[in-house]
């Protein structure tokens, strides 16, 4: 009788409290990893999508979603993984982008590189490496404050 007790709007709100395991300042909703929430009389069904196909955080995200929903009395939610359509950085919410920058990670841009250094805001930046500490990030460096920083790759 789960679907009678919970609305999908409520579920979405609760999922806002589930942080990305590797970038804890943004939620899995802001990241665009949660694609769909369906509720009916039998169950709650949540569809998630990986950022990169080898993203090791997916299993942790599933566990965190189940744990968060259990706090609100949602038992045995069904988790589905979908890769169609494939995840894109366009799914990052405005709030997610702002939080990334505050945290020190430059948000993705269609131009293929960061707009500015997330620390000192200088636009004089250069790429160090196409890959960074997680599959979704690249390494950049600010030529003004000389600090290295992560850039959320645009795909």
């Amino acid at each position, binding site marked *: 009788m789960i679907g009678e007790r919970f609305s999908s709007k409520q579920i979405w709100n609760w999922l806002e409290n589930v942080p990305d395991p590797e970038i804890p300042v943004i939620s899995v909703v802001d990241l665009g990893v949660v694609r769909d929430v369906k509720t009916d009389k039998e169950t709650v069904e949540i569809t998630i999508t*990986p950022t990169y196909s080898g993203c090791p955080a997916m299993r942790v995200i599933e566990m965190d979603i189940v744990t968060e929903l259990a706090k609100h009395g949602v038992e045995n939610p069904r988790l589905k993984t979908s890769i169609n359509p494939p995840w894109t950085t366009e799914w990052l919410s405005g709030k997610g982008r702002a939080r990334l920058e505050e945290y020190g990670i430059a948000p993705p841009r269609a131009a293929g590189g960061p707009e500015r250094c997330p620390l000192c805001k200088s636009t004089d930046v250069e790429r160090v490496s196409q890959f960074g500490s997680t599959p979704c990030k690249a390494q950049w460096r600010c030529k003004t404050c000389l600090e290295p920083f992560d850039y959320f790759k645009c795909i």
Partner: protein
Amino acid sequence: MTTTDDYALFEFLLRQGDNALVLGHRTSEWCGVGPVLEEDIALANTALDLIGQTQLWLAFAGEVEGKGRDANDLAYFRDPYDFRNVLMLELPNEDFARTMMRQFLFDAFQVPWLDALTTSSEQRVADIAAKSLKEAKYHLERSAETVVALGDGTEESNARMRNALEFLWPYAGEIFSDDEIDESINRKRIAPLPSSVRDVWNRVVDQTLSDAMLSRPESDFSHKGGRTGFRHTEHLGHMLATMQVLQRSHPGATW
């Protein structure tokens, strides 16, 4: 598997999954020993993308086969002669030059190939290809840049890239060697013939090698046998021994 159609699809999916798996494992061998930290991280991330793609392809292969085998079963409990990757990808890394040249020769195939698969009549193939294509394009950007940087670098780096190219070249052509499985898959519009993307590959390879001050070897001879499973090199068994030892010794072990 109930029909010959399923058999062809299973073999086709193993070819995709095993290419990603074997290259992914070889690339992961660099983890912790990369020439510089940034390259070490880049190689590990490339490996991770490839292993992720492997899971998608082999999970589907297991479902098509219908014997209850999942992606892990197919990765860890098959023997060398059951693998369907092209020979080039199972060769030892040797050095950074060979590793990056191989990555480039494969990426230059993978980008037009996966792009063609995005219009597959088999929806699941199209979905996996669309997901993998984004990653393959990113890999190609890096591998092509690295081939140019090293080829047009120092005397030493140019010599190493030349050696790598000459060593790998007699293996590169296998990827385009169509057989009856490819023809069957092509008739059902699941995928075009691999040979159909050779022109695009030639253009990208010729341009990049020229930018890298390297000359394309003349011979078109190619070793074959990996993608059909007819004959692998002696290196695959050694690689699998390392890759599979944990699951073979402790079947079903989990983290």
